[in-house]
């Protein structure tokens, strides 16, 4: 079975463009949950890597039988991590997007992103979150789990941007999904 990555993060420019980025895919019976984020991007890679491994470990406990409950479980597990385990910045620099899907329906929630775009199978690109949504735009671990947006289209690719609200180019997105059968970083 080919597992396609359907959640993409447009991160930093500069010397280490993927510093602190992580991607995790969790299979839960009929559900799959993709989690993509960035933590400690300004730290040395070994420090942000430790924070990222902590997040991965905690998210192995995710459960749920619907996209909404699985999404909620992701945030509950994240919020249970002691702040010091996120490294020197205590998780104050965390950006993260969670997309849970089953069949044709799904749920999405995020923090620390300037914009989220959806790319549908017919090549349509829509802005679904812009810079006017503080709950999504605010960087750092939230005090409460963020609200989730439900959607219906299992083929949609979601592209979150940490830095900008510019529409992502198809080539930019494609470069982050190398090979259609690649299960990336997770």
């Amino acid at each position, binding site marked *: 079975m080919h597992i396609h990555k359907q959640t993409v993060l447009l991160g930093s420019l500069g*010397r*280490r*463009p*993927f*510093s*602190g*980025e*992580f*991607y*995790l895919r969790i299979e839960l019976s009929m559900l799959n949950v993709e989690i993509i984020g960035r933590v400690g991007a300004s730290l040395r*890679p*070994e420090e*942000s*890597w430790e924070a*990222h*491994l902590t997040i*991965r470990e905690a998210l192995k406990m995710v459960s749920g039988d619907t996209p909404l409950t699985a999404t909620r479980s992701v945030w509950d597990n994240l919020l249970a991590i002691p702040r010091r385990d996120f490294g020197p910045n205590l998780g104050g620099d965390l950006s993260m997007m969670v997309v849970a899907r089953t069949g044709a329906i799904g749920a999405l929630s995020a923090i620390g992103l300037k914009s989220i775009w959806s790319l549908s199978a017919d090549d349509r690109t829509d802005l679904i979150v812009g810079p006017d949504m503080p709950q999504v735009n605010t960087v750092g671990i939230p005090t409460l789990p963020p609200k989730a947006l439900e959607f219906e289209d299992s083929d949609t690719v979601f592209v979150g941007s940490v830095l900008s609200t510019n529409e992502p180019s198809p080539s930019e997105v494609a470069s*982050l*999904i*190398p090979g259609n059968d*690649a*299960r*990336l*970083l*997770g």
Partner: protein
Amino acid sequence: MNKLYEGDFSGINMPKDLPILIDAVKAGLSDNVDLSTLYSALATEHPIALCELCVGPRAMRGSEAVKQALRFATALEDSMQPKALYRRLVELSTTNEDSPDVETALAVLDEASKRHPGASWVLPLCDKFEAIPGEAHLTNSIGSGSFEAVCWAHAKAGHMKALHMLSSQGHIECAAAILSTGREDLAIKAAGAVINHSWEAPVVPWFTAISGPKADQILLKLIPYIRSGQAARAMHAQSEPLPNTYKLLSLVLPGLK
């Protein structure tokens, strides 16, 4: 002894009498006189005259004059931009303008890169004089806040040999800088040198920070270069998020001591 050598400028009117000073210094250098007191006094009392003497249009040429000037680099930098100062000192390092004395030029480069580890203007000097371009600048910037940036600058300039050399001393930044240029094969060899010098080196985090999802395929090629079980176990512990690398390391680990 000339009273100027003792830093006594009585009867001297600067800058009008600069030629007198230059003649005195020329004589002192040829007689192996210790000119430290004179230069120190100039730095304090007549910094512009010191600058004229060391790097001005009528400055003295030659290895001894330049090495003497380098001892007062701090004072000279107060009067002149470092970039122009060190280039001028290289020019002055021999009497023949077309071919500066390499040993003296290297002394200038060494001083410049020690005092300005993050400066990009050092790079052309490396190309021109160093047998392994970048070696001095990279070495002098280890431990400075600009080491990573310096590695990237030298990678961009193509100074792979120096970067590989420092990789062999355990500096992962150097291997990562090579990777940033897209020279994957060279980067893998450099990462092998890093991990075989320092088994705990964070190769996986650095390569992933640069290449993102592609790091998994790149790091697979590193595995044949790993010589110790300790290094393989350390990399295995780091690589769980990279499924292909993690899987291959799991397979080879039992065969490594």
